């Protein structure tokens, strides 16, 4: 555990030692309400809830989470520090886990910056706070899934821009898979089993359950399973490097 703690601590402080954390948090704090107010028409709906915020959150996360995840392994490879990290007597799960938890903490901090909106709806009306809390939990899990996917893809390259593009592309596909028009195209051209399978993969479907205030076991398993799978993939990709092109 001390190894996991050491990696977590280093990664989290690395975000704040560079402008990355501040830029990320500022963009998130600005963009999330901007989406909710302008695109989601927060005031026009005349309802005291955060639906306008949660509606657009997946699309914001598709861009911002890969930006947070891209450096995870690509930067270590680019700077040669992976050699230092691999010479430490620590298991790979501790490195992968520490990196993920640090990024996930950053996502939690960014989400916390939207709490003034939560306070505002309580001031303006009487929202279902339990449903809003569930919505936040779902958003955090969705962010975690995108981060884990992004970090696994970051292990495939030494170039952070490539890692970002791969991560954003994967997050986009994961989100798109559940959209009605994708499923209707699939439904018309592919067997029902295929479109059901694709719909089941969709992060958006599982996220929507949380958005409606429901914590389903299947949805929890989906997000936590996806995160675990991606961390294992990242670990395997990094340990492959010990093989040195075998």
């Amino acid at each position, binding site marked *: 555990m001390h190894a996991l703690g050491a990696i977590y601590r280093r990664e989290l402080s690395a975000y704040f030692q*560079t402008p990355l954390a501040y830029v990320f948090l500022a963009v998130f704090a600005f963009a999330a309400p901007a989406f909710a107010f302008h695109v989601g028409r927060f005031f026009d709906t005349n309802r005291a809830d955060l639906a306008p915020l949660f509606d657009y959150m997946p699309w914001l996360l598709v861009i911002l989470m890969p930006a947070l995840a891209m450096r995870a392994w690509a930067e270590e490879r680019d700077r*040669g520090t992976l050699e230092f990290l691999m*010479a430490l007597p620590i298991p790979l799960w501790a490195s992968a886990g520490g990196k993920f938890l640090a990024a996930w903490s950053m996502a939690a901090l960014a989400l916390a910056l939207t709490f003034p909106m939560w306070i505002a709806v309580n001031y303006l009306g009487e929202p279902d706070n339990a449903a809003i809390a569930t919505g936040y939990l779902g958003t955090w899990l969705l962010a975690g899934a995108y981060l884990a996917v992004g970090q696994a893809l970051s292990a495939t390259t030494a170039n952070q821009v490539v890692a970002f593009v791969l991560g954003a592309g994967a997050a986009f596909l994961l989100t798109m898979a559940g959209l009605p028009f994708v499923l209707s195209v699939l439904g018309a051209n592919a067997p029902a089993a295929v479109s059901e399978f694709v719909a089941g993969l969709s992060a958006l479907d599982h996220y929507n359950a949380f958005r409606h205030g429901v914590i389903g076991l299947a949805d929890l398993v989906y997000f936590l399973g996806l995160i675990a799978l991606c961390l294992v993939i990242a670990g395997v990709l990094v340990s492959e490097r*010990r*093989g040195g092109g075998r």
Partner: protein
Amino acid sequence: MLVADHLTKDFGAHRAVEDVSFTLERGEVLGFLGPNGAGKTTTMRMLAGGLEPDAGKASIAGHDSVADRLEAQSRLGYLPEGAPAYPSMTPRDFVAFGLRARGFSGAALKRATEHALERASLGDYARQPIGTLSKGYKRRAALAAAIAHDPPVLILDEPTDGLDPNQKDGVRRLIREMAPDKAIIISTHILEEVPAVCSRAIVIARGRLLFDGSPRELVELTPDRQLDAAFRQLTTADAEAAA
């Protein structure tokens, strides 16, 4: 303390290291010599557990570098090629990070950090981000991280590369100080380093071990008793034999 047992490594069709074997005991300082691309770094990475050999074995203090990697690495201090370090961290944070990952905490962590920074003569630069330091201080920061946990085995890949003469002297003095109770390998292509710090020398070229003996035996290979002449004779004879 350290064993390389018939180590072999291929990168694609290129054989980087071929059947390299040697052992190193406590108190020995081994100078690992060879032309660029000879396989020095590849051999050291295999010893350090950062690269798995295709054939053969490496072990540190009796622990296999692959099968028992964590035990082997906990007894090893390794300065990788180019002395990589995180540029946004200060040397103090960098050394402390390595120690924390090795399980140090509290007073022991603080003591080991300060001792390593002092041994590597970082002075006030210990508080500046590594990215703002000169090459020499950056290398000392990485060196401090390699020696901080006081390991019985040290593998230092070109520890004096890019240092000015005074800094080189400082690093050599540090290695001599640590030598009596450790097994140390340093790779270098600065031949003057060998008689200055090493008790033993190995020459490799094209992945193969060409010479293993004392620095004195190495100079005696040529009639004029010059180290660089001996080095050239060994490595060029090998290149001609291969051609």
